[in-house]
């Protein structure tokens, strides 16, 4: 974590500002993955449409700044308003999607969340006034009225970093709370939770909304990061990427999604630098992680940790 905090300093020192951008992207996707992990890892709700909220957050910034720049409506460029609107809009969307989807189970749940995501995707594609398929270029970043200057990539990096820490802390507190216990309980045995008398559906819905709202916030950051918004932010492959990051890193663990997101983007960047045919290594790597690494990378690391401490313990005994 401290290492991540120092990234912009190191990048500036070696005059490679590109890495600030790369790690910034990792942080944003980490927030998205952590938010999805709340419902997927802990709650067993496999949402295959989580990128919708990234999209909603992004479009709030895209549309807001467009009007701020073109029509001079300054309040629409305000960062606080972007965040508030993005969180509310994402929560409302999640309420709508969740209320219908959570009635189904298993693969049907996966597919119905995908269906809603595709609807939002095509709404964005069809909306010509905001760029349609071609997307919108941002001509300013969210304006935090002198408090923060996001046009500086390092400032944006630390904003992302701060939000990731807050998200991790919140999700840690939430999971340990009574509410979190309930969500986890409903994952392992829904029947029992129900017969004890808990309104499982309602709890799940709340978790679903919370998760969507956080991801919406990640969308706001993402739009500022890329200076560009297009429907591809909420394409189903992006939702798939989020799931893959979680499973790769380790689901239902606090840091798993962060590790997954960092590893995913790092491998993409590193392997593609190394060979044009990087996916021929990346693909089988994923298969191997699944077959040999129960619990993703985090699971492997934890097991290595255990093995390490066990062997050093036995050495001490000798």
């Amino acid at each position, binding site marked *: 974590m401290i*290492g*991540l905090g120092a990234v912009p300093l*190191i990048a500036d020192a*070696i*005059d*490679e*500002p*590109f*890495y600030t*951008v*790369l790690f910034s992207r990792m942080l944003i996707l980490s927030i998205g993955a952590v938010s999805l992990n709340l419902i997927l890892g802990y709650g067993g709700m496999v949402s295959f449409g989580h990128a919708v909220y990234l999209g909603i957050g992004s479009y709030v910034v895209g549309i807001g700044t467009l009007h701020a720049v073109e029509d001079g409506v300054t309040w629409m460029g305000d960062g606080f308003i972007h965040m508030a609107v993005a969180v509310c809009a994402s929560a409302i969307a999640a309420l709508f999607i969740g209320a219908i989807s959570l009635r189904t189970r298993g693969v049907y749940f996966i597919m119905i969340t995908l269906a809603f995501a595709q609807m939002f995707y095509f709404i964005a594609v069809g909306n010509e006034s905001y760029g*349609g*398929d*071609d*997307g919108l*270029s*941002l*001509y300013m970043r969210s304006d935090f009225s002198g408090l923060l200057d996001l046009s500086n990539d390092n400032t944006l990096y630390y904003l992302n970093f701060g939000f990731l820490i807050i998200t991790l802390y919140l999700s840690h507190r939430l999971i340990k709370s009574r509410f979190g216990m309930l969500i986890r309980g409903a994952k392992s045995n829904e029947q029992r939770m129900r017969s004890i008398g808990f309104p499982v559906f309602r709890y799940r819905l709340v978790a679903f909304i919370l998760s969507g709202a956080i991801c919406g916030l990640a969308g706001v950051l993402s739009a500022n990061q*890329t*200076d*560009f918004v*297009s429907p*591809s*932010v909420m394409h189903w492959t992006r939702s798939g990427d989020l799931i893959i990051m979680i499973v790769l890193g380790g689901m239902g663990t606090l*840091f798993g999604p962060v*590790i997954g997101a*960092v*590893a995913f983007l*790092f491998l993409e*960047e*590193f392997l593609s*630098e*190394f060979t044009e045919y990087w996916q021929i290594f990346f693909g089988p790597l994923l298969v191997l992680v699944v077959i040999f690494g129960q619990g993703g*990378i*985090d699971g492997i*690391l*934890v097991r*290595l*940790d255990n093995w*390490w401490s066990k062997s050093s313990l036995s050495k001490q005994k000798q």
Partner: protein
Amino acid sequence: MRKLFLWTVSLGVLIISQAAMADTVKIGFVTTLTGGAGAIGNDMRDAVELALDHLGRKMGSSDVKMFYEDDTFKPDVGKQKTEKLVKKDKVHFVTGYIWSHVLLASRNSVVGKGPFMITSNAGPGPVAGKLCHEDFFSTSWQNDQTTMAMGEVLNQLGIKNLYIMAPNYAAGKSMVAGVSRTFKGNIVGKDMTKFPAQLDFSAELAKVRAANPDAVFVFYPGKHGMQFFKQYSQAGLKGSVPLYSAFTVDSLSLPRLKDLASGSLMTQFWAPDLDNPVNKRFVADYRKKTGRYPTFYAAQSYDTIMLINSAVTAVGGDLSNKSGMRAAMRKADFPSIRGPFKYGNNHFPIQNFYLRKVIKDSEGNFTTSIEKTVYTNHQDPYAKDCKMSW
């Protein structure tokens, strides 16, 4: 262990970062190298390499380093690659760009950030008009121009009822806008199809048949064009309704389309048989190098390198002298495949547009030849929205 993981990541980052080279002209070239449109990017790369060969791999006394990046046909990926070229590779020129939506998405990462941006194909309206910029140049055309010329041709042919089909993205919309600007007859039907997902045009072709127009006009670049021509013929429309196109039939699809495209008419700013010494040498050497006729994409990419060369040699290799390079490029004083031309105030060429027809050359290869000149020294309609003057 988690810490170890992080250290590995940071170490890896240090390893892959490369030291910057001094005094080398670094040119980023963003194009599509994979998928169905990969053939286009490949063609452009061949033309760039040929141009560098013609220059002896040097611009003045400076070495040249090319950075080819694959946008995979997606605006967000193109944007990311562009950002990498500017921030990591620190290139002096960012060029390439087949697709208008990729160009529009990437523009802000380059313009105003130091490097020059030169489009080698895409020419969406905004960058020629309101968003024109002193660091942005084109070695192609503005999207509307080619189809405006086609509208003129259709008027001259006496076409009354026209059916239009194009993909639903930035360039598709400009192309349709262009033909609608000049065509005086009725547009009896218009289909904007999903791009690039939709390759099956059966539903739309059935509508064309039902509408029974005098002519069909399409804009389908790359593999879409090939599929369209095939399906047009499979549906039995070839021969009964004449088909006119822009950027749809090119030297990549012709060897595969053969007779399907024979006699087909299109408008364009250039053709392989355009009669000037630069073009003759370019086409001959390109064919020697690759065994194919060059596409217009290739021709424009060749010009891109020549334009950059004119700028670099004008300032004697001093790449920090941006105003000197800009002034040199504005003169358009380089051997262009389209012959001598001038830049408009928006840094888009003022140039001729020709009507081309698909023919068989003396060796039996399919290519195109110029039928007549439709526009002479034509300037795009967006130039007046550009506030730049020099």
